């Protein structure tokens, strides 16, 4: 009865834009219907929590901060020495399951699904567009597929995840999403872009 709405609903009506030479070199859109849960341990309980999460999800956790491990449609990101962000799709919401698996003395579980909006950009020039605002090295040697970083984009916090050689996902705070969207589409102007809402049903 209550319908979910995207913070980018208003910009849906905006059109695609031709860039230099009348070309549309990029695709930009929003991905919806995903869940995010943060799991964190206290320093003394880090190993215990990792075991618990591994057992609950049946996966190996990525060892390095900045690495993500994909398991089916789940993506596990190590965001700190004792902290993970876990993305899942659709009805696969594991927050409640983790909440019951992780005892309060072991760590915390916080559902963050609604806190962020996922804007994606795809195309051979996507890296160039992002380099106009992101001050981290996006070279594929340093930041290949399944790499992510928590950093800033145009004065606001962002989690950037590289989902393929040419595609990046920006998880921006929901309340800054329109600001970031306006910046991103403006930065992409000379390249031209096609807006793509197929992932935002």
């Amino acid at each position, binding site marked *: 009865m209550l319908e979910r709405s995207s913070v980018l609903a208003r910009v849906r009506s905006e059109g695609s834009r031709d860039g230099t030479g009348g070309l549309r070199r990029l695709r930009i859109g929003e991905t919806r219907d995903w869940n995010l849960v943060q799991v964190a341990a206290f320093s003394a309980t880090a190993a215990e929590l990792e075991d618990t999460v591994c057992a609950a999800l049946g996966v190996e956790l990525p060892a390095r901060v900045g690495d993500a491990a994909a398991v089916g449609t789940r993506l596990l990101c190590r965001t700190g020495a004792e902290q993970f962000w876990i993305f899942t799709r659709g009805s696969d919401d594991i927050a409640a399951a983790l909440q019951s698996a992780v005892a309060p003395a072991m760590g915390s579980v916080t559902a963050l699904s609604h806190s962020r909006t996922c804007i994606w950009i795809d195309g051979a020039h996507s890296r160039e567009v992002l380099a106009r605002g992101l*001050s981290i090295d996006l070279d594929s040697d340093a930041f290949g597929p399944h790499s992510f970083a*928590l950093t800033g984009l145009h004065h606001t916090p962002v989690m950037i995840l590289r989902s393929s050689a040419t595609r990046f996902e920006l998880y921006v705070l929901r309340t800054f999403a329109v600001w970031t969207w306006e910046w991103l589409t403006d930065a992409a102007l000379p390249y031209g872009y096609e807006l793509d809402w197929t992932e935002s049903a």
Partner: protein
Amino acid sequence: MLRLSCPICGTRDYTEFHYGGDARKRRPEHAAADLKAWHDYVFLFDNVKGVHREFWQHLLGCRQWLVVERDTASNVVVSTVLARSAVGTTASVSPGAGASREGNT
């Protein structure tokens, strides 16, 4: 531009961080009923020339508080560690051969 090496996230521009004050000072025990100690902690600061210990928070990254040893005269960063692991230690290294102006190693 000052670049700081977050032990969690790697080297980033200082604009991702937030300066948080003098890390050489020890905060008095929470329940300490010692007006003088609190006064000195809150109001008295040294203006250090040379290697200084500072708190910085990686605000746009992992949100961890760090202890950064920075030479206030040259802006050379000598060391960066998590505040959690640094609190209570007072080790201070003088900038020498190891201190480089490097950006992103």
